[in-house]
């Protein structure tokens, strides 16, 4: 049940990110839309790995080796989430760098100003 709630929030976040990216004209808001979408994806990833009333897969005094298999959450999506977060950050950094250069080029951040090459 919990993972369904988490999954829905993640997917809603993606939708909000998409909506923000499509409607706002300011490039920075578009970048924020993309990072929102990224965060939504990471939440979805974690939601997929959830096992009914499981805990973090770290073997310590709270979770002994023997009962780990039954009470631990799926570790793989969490590992993938770490990598995905780093990639999300990297892409946002590149986007912001380009936003700066675009502003320096045309003194405006509105996406409609950048339609030189077409057809």
């Amino acid at each position: 049940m919990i993972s369904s709630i988490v999954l829905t929030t993640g997917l809603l976040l993606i939708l909000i990110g998409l909506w923000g990216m499509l409607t706002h004209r300011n490039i920075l808001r578009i970048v924020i839309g993309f990072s929102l979408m990224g965060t939504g994806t990471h939440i979805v990833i974690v939601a997929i790995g959830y096992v009914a009333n499981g805990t973090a897969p770290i073997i310590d005094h709270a979770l002994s080796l023997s009962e780990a298999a039954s009470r631990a959450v799926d570790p793989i999506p969490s590992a993938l989430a770490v990598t995905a977060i780093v990639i999300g950050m990297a892409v946002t950094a590149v986007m912001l760098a380009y936003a700066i250069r675009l502003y320096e080029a045309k003194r405006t951040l509105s996406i409609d100003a950048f339609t030189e090459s077409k057809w």
Partner: protein
Amino acid sequence: MIRRLSIIVAIVAFGLVFASLVIGHTEQQSLLPLAESYIRLVPQELGAANVITGILLTYRAFDTLGEVAVLFMVAAGVGLVLGGERPPRSGPLEDRFEGARPPSEIVQTGTQILVPLISIFAAYIIMNGHLTAGGGFQGGAVIASGVLLMLLTYPQYQPNPEFLGVTESVAGALFVLTGIAGLIAAGGFLDNRILPLGQFGAFFSAGTIPILSALLGIKVGCELSVILERFRP
């Protein structure tokens, strides 16, 4: 108007697709076979308590190596895009951009207290990556937050790009070297059984995972601070 309408239609359609996902999603009652074997194998084979770091730094270490390459490229790429060598930051803050004021006294004292705390916390996360939650990436991010705080409070503070660049490269090269050592000495590329697995749960255990985690933490810390430093005006 049509534009707004088409956006709404697209979002609603995506909403429907996602709805079908939520409906189709059934919560896992028990672990899938692969995950279940990971939880059994990591403590046993690699001697790491934190299964996720075990996966990240050995079984899927090739991913992590790719990750590190991604960060490495972003550091270089952002530098390239933002115009490479920046004019050295001489002179006080005011003349560089109008309306700037020296950071308030509260922020300065806050930093003096917080930065040591942050760095200790970061070191803890990196070094205990294989025992408790955390690891190289997370520790590196905390280091970067400390550096960001420094950048905010002391405008003329400039992390020495020379030092960052060299440590970044050396850490990366060492990471790859450990991988090659794994190829030669142990089971395969990036295998951690070069060093003894040590006593389960002890500080020095789980083969090269702590070392890789440390290298990773330093490298990510340097790269993120290089990126942050590039973004300053």
